[in-house]
């Protein structure tokens, strides 16, 4: 028992996985439709959208920061890229649009990183400020109208399927191709965090930036990298989100950052920094998405979803703090 606890506490993702299994078992007993292909694909679609953002959040949390501006960055990059494409190059390939969106995101992220490093302000404050700044700038200078008529490449990429089949009762189910974006980004982020010197420097700075500086790590480089990359991932996430929804809405996303941060924390990353894994963050996202989906399925009012997620966060944080508490 003690050995088991030791292994679990070393790998908090197990707790998240355990919660997912419990939830799936419980809900499938109450509602057999839970295992339907439609529901599975719906879960994957939502996981794709939240999961990409979660990877950026994970990076920042691992380095001991917190970023609440990523939704603003995502929507800014999405809407601006869509607007620019329609204006100058309506037939642009999707890859080019992704590159523009990611570049915009990276630049905004670098601004976050620069402010955090240069003025030594807590990143929460900086990113609250830049969230307002980016959102306000977008609506003032770029536009406020929904763009339903998105560029063709964006539309086709959003509807392209990785897997398509019809269920017994004749419903066509499509697993979106863009799911692969999440897979690729997750693998790259995992390799970055575990196999590169930069990745370990991120955890070192997250453990203690003072010690990291004393031992010769460039804290400035790490912070610029982390926030810049988180911005880049947010730019990517924004574009994928817009493509899947086939809509560029300047009021989208902002306000949902806590859902993503909560998911990453549920995956075992400490808010105090220096910990977290890609697999944990993704499991956290799956858990949050499943709670939302399954509660709807079993007929729990949507207002109750927040209560459940809040409760799960409190219980999980209690377990995690017991793990870290010595």
């Amino acid at each position, binding site marked *: 028992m003690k050995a088991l606890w030791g292994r679990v506490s070393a790998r908090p993702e197990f707790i998240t996985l355990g919660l997912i299994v419990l939830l799936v078992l419980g809900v499938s007993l109450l509602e057999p439709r839970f295992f339907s292909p439609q529901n599975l694909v719906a879960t994957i679609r939502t996981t794709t959208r939240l999961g990409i953002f979660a990877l950026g959040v994970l990076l920042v949390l691992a380095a001991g920061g917190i970023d609440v501006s990523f939704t603003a960055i995502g929507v800014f990059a999405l809407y601006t890229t869509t607007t620019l494409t329609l204006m100058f190059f309506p037939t642009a390939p999707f890859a080019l649009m992704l590159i523009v969106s990611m570049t915009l995101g990276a630049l905004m992220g670098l601004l976050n990183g620069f402010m955090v490093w240069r003025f030594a302000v807590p990143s929460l404050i900086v990113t609250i400020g830049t969230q307002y700044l980016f959102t306000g700038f977008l609506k003032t200078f770029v536009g406020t109208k929904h763009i339903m008529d998105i560029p063709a490449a964006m539309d086709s990429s959003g509807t392209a399927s990785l897997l398509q089949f019809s269920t017994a009762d004749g419903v066509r189910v499509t697993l979106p191709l863009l799911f692969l974006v999440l897979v690729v980004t997750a693998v790259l982020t995992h390799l970055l965090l575990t196999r590169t010197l930069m990745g370990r420097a991120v955890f070192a700075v997250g453990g203690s930036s003072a010690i990291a500086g*004393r031992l010769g790590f*460039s804290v400035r480089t790490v912070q610029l990298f982390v926030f810049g990359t988180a911005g880049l991932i947010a730019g990517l996430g924004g574009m994928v989100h817009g493509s899947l929804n086939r809509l560029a809405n300047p009021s989208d996303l902002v306000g949902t950052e806590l859902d993503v941060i909560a998911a990453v924390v549920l995956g075992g990353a400490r808010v105090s920094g220096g910990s977290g894994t890609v697999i944990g963050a993704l499991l956290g996202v799956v858990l949050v998405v499943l709670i939302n989906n399954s509660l709807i399925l079993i007929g729990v009012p949507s207002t109750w979803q927040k209560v459940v997620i809040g409760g799960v966060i409190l219980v999980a944080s209690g377990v995690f703090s017991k793990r870290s508490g010595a």
Partner: protein
Amino acid sequence: MTPSPTPSPTTPRADALLRLEGISKTFGGVKALNNVSLELQAGRVYHLLGENGSGKSTLIKIIAGAQPPDAGQIIVRGQSYNQLGALEAIRAGIETVYQDLSLFPNLSVAENVALTTQLDLNGGQLARMLDWGKVKRIAIKALERVGLPTHAGFLAAPVETLPIAVRQLVAIARGIAARASLVIMDEPTAALTQREVENLLLIISSLREEGVSVLFVSHKLEEVFRIGGSVIVLRDGVKVLDGALSDYDETKISFVMTGKQLDQTTYRTGQPQSEVLLEVSNLARGTAFADVSFALHRGEVLGITGLLDSGRNELALALSGVHPATSGEVRLEGSAVQIRNPRDAISLGLGYVPEDRLTEGLFLTKPIRENTVVTVIDTLLKGIQLNFAAMTAKAVGFVKDLQIATPSVDLPVSSLSGGNQQRVMVARWLATKPKVLMLHGPTAGVDVGSKDALYKLVQRLAEGGMGVIIVSDDLPELLMNTDRILVMKKGRIAKEFTTADLEKDLLTQTLLSEDSSAQQ
């Protein structure tokens, strides 16, 4: 007896591993280092000695590149720097085992040991793949050398899950993992058992044989003499000795370190009364201290000393209610009392002036007035409002009484010098009219003039019938002010001295001796 003359600034030698020329560093008006020059040769062991606050840690940080000097040159193998960056120092082959260990609590043992060597190998560039196999090989080699396990479970264990002695060994392993030319060890033995210390001494001699220099800092003179080599002594930021250890003995070194015996002045004026004011019986708290019993008489000044890990700090914190004792009895004026928290201590009349007035006591940005009266703020009300006139009157009274040098009690405490800040701290507790006043390291970072004023105040208070306890590692301070001195070791009172007929040398030796011969 005078310290041997400081050698004139060393003549440059081509083969010097590290040379410092005229290094100075000032913190908030206090000169931590004043024109320090020294030279370290390859393959030798140097001991950097000095009392707390003598500038040792600052000097180490400057050599390790953690802090820039205000003035002076650092010359590493002929290459001259105005200041070293952390990475430059590591690249120049200088590895440091910091007193605070500087380990990443969240990272594994293997990474803590070997990550900085990887950073160094890549010239500080982070955009590189990490060779985990290499990290593990380097870590295993270093861990074997310090006698730690090397199995996968230990390599992967986060440092925060390890006991403190193991962390110390991990920090040492990191220091020797890189092929350094100079390893600095700042009090590496404080947390180690005798067996681990023996192993460390072996490591040091093998490093020396490999041509690696070691700069060793320890308060345990016995260890210092067993290792041997050269000695550099700092006192109040000035280098007062630089020579071969074999030319000195423990007594002489202690003398050079403190250098204050020439002041024959004693401040102690009064006599303790016969009535026992405070009686402590079998007081204990966890592993920090146990079996502590002593009595404090009315009008008595009692000194308590010991090394950093002796339990003296924990005892002081227990009596002040900050970290209460877990068992034992305290009687005040004959009746048993409970000290469960600082509030209890204050209402019982036990005043406590903490060691670190910046973090444990003063509200630096708040006015002197508020800082002075905060302990008695509940007596200075007008209805539910604060009575500012009464607060000001009280604070002004203390400013006059304790000669706090300030034009106004409206100024923030941060505007005062260290000595005057300390007086504000004392005033705050005198305002509670305590029966017992505990002063913890009362003159650390305080200039000579303020020391003098504080000592005179202590004597005045004792003559007024207060019992005073001074917890300090400043031995001359205890000798000049107290009636009795308790020496703590390993959480127990090892020896009690009557101050009047006590030689400083004996006290120093008792304090520093490792063996138990002085304990009974």
